[in-house]
């Protein structure tokens, strides 16, 4: 393993101290417990809080700022933050109109946010939870923990953040966030696994010429393995389930988000974007908005995910609304 790191147990603090110093104009990093808040907090708005393991940067800390999150709670690498940190971040984000927790559907995240929400309710802070489960690789059924929350969390945070910024109430922010959750789907592929710093070896083994289709964002194995094919063919395996799951076609307009897992160059992401866009357009779907980049990474995993969000005029306007965070700005 080769990593740019100091001692393994200093990794998360080093990441957060660097992040806080680099973006001191936008965010403030708090320690013991670790959480990040925005500098220009508007009072009297609904607070939007998310969190999850470190290693997915810029998610979630990079999305703290005007028009998006009020606070983010980073956990250890690939590990959910603990309830005490979520409580502290939520208190800081509460402007008196309640707090919305945006939670990716992973057992650890769900249990820790649920425990924190119970503690916050005891303190008299209104908390609502929006569960993001956009990963179509997992069939939602009683036989699994349900579909995972992956790159679809970015449009949820962006759009819910814009709704909160314009002054929507707790119920309205939750409603718009849930509308996004209902219309966003993602499918990913890994070419090589991530290596967690304190573990020191890849999270799973892939043979040369083999890919993991339907991989999650914590290096957990996906649903099936297949041969490495040309990019357009692989991209097709990612886009087809999205088309089917959302029943896309006709005059649908979508946001197309091609996300890198951390170890794949931007050039390859554009190859994937090209293939995905053609595939969607061949199905009669209009790509109205696009985003390409490393937004929800998995440390140094090689691979990419494709996300589609079916847009309506309001969701499009909220996506377009101004945002000023370390990782997204327009």
């Amino acid at each position, binding site marked *: 393993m080769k990593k740019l790191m100091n001692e393994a147990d200093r990794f998360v603090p080093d990441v957060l101290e660097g992040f806080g110093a680099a973006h001191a104009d936008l965010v403030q990093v708090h320690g013991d417990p670790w959480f990040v808040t925005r500098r220009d907090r508007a009072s009297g708005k609904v607070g939007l809080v998310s969190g999850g393991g470190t290693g997915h940067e810029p998610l979630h800390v990079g999305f703290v700022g005007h028009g998006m999150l009020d606070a983010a709670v980073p956990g250890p690498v690939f*590990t959910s933050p603990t*309830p005490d940190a979520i409580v502290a971040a939520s208190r800081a984000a509460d402007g008196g109109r309640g707090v919305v927790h945006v939670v990716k559907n992973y057992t*650890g995240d769900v249990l820790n946010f649920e*425990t924190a929400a119970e503690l916050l309710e005891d303190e008299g802070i209104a908390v609502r939870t929006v569960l993001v489960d956009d990963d179509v690789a997992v069939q939602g059924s009683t036989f699994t923990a349900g579909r995972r929350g992956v790159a679809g969390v970015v449009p949820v945070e962006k759009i819910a953040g814009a709704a909160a910024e314009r002054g929507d109430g707790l119920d309205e922010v939750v409603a718009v966030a849930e509308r996004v959750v209902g219309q966003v789907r993602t499918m990913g592929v890994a070419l090589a696994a991530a290596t967690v710093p304190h573990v020191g070896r890849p999270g799973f083994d892939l043979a040369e010429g083999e890919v993991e289709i339907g991989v999650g964002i914590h290096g*957990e*194995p996906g649903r099936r393995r297949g041969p490495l094919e040309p990019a357009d063919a692989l991209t097709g395996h990612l886009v087809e389930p999205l088309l089917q799951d959302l029943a896309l076609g006709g005059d649908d307009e979508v946001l197309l988000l091609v996300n890198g897992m951390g170890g794949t160059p931007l050039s390859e992401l554009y190859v994937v974007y090209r293939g995905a866009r053609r595939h969607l357009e061949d199905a009669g779907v209009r790509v109205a908005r696009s985003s390409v980049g490393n937004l929800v990474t998995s440390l140094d995993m090689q691979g990419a995910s494709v996300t589609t969000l079916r847009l309506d005029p309001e969701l499009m306007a909220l996506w377009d609304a101004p945002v000023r965070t370390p990782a997204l700005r327009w």
Partner: protein
Amino acid sequence: MALDAAWAVRWARWSAEVVVAEREHLVELDRRIGDGDHGENLARGLSAVQVKLGQVPVPDQVGEVLRLVATTMMSTVGGAAGPLYGTAFLRAAKISGVSSLSPAAVVAMLEAALEGVVSRGRASPGEKTMVDAWAAAVGAAQEAEGAGADPVAVLAAAADAAEAGARSTVPMVATKGRASYLGERSAGHMDPGAASTAMLLRAAHAAAESS
């Protein structure tokens, strides 16, 4: 032989020692069907418990020791294991607020822990989770207590059964937690949460034997 606060402190310390020693083993189990962080998270949390026990005056009731273990794990373990073990020890602490545990109190403590894990994780036996180890331990403890065993023997029965319960997860197909994403591919591997539960209950018994 008394299962008192000193026993509970030894249990916590020995749990930390065994999990730190078995850290790599737990990492490897979790790497096969999860994301490989269980050994790391649990070792971090239980080491924090050890530190905490060295900083504060040692509580004189079993329940207070278990409460300290619960709150420390909840704020240091993370992942799914943090809230699950945290809730288990918190519920167990409520039931064992006495200076020394009777055989019935040992059973009640284990029942409360199992109930906490089930209510937090919404899993039932047979889903390849730590519930399989906890549930087996509770069943065996109830049986031993019914047969007139002393508290240490009740714990011994619970620890043996937890290990068997952990082994029973090997052929299971996971339907809860992160391993469930693997479907059929999860069969053939022991659940790491069930494995660590067996380690903690073995530590509870070993701590009682030495008293």
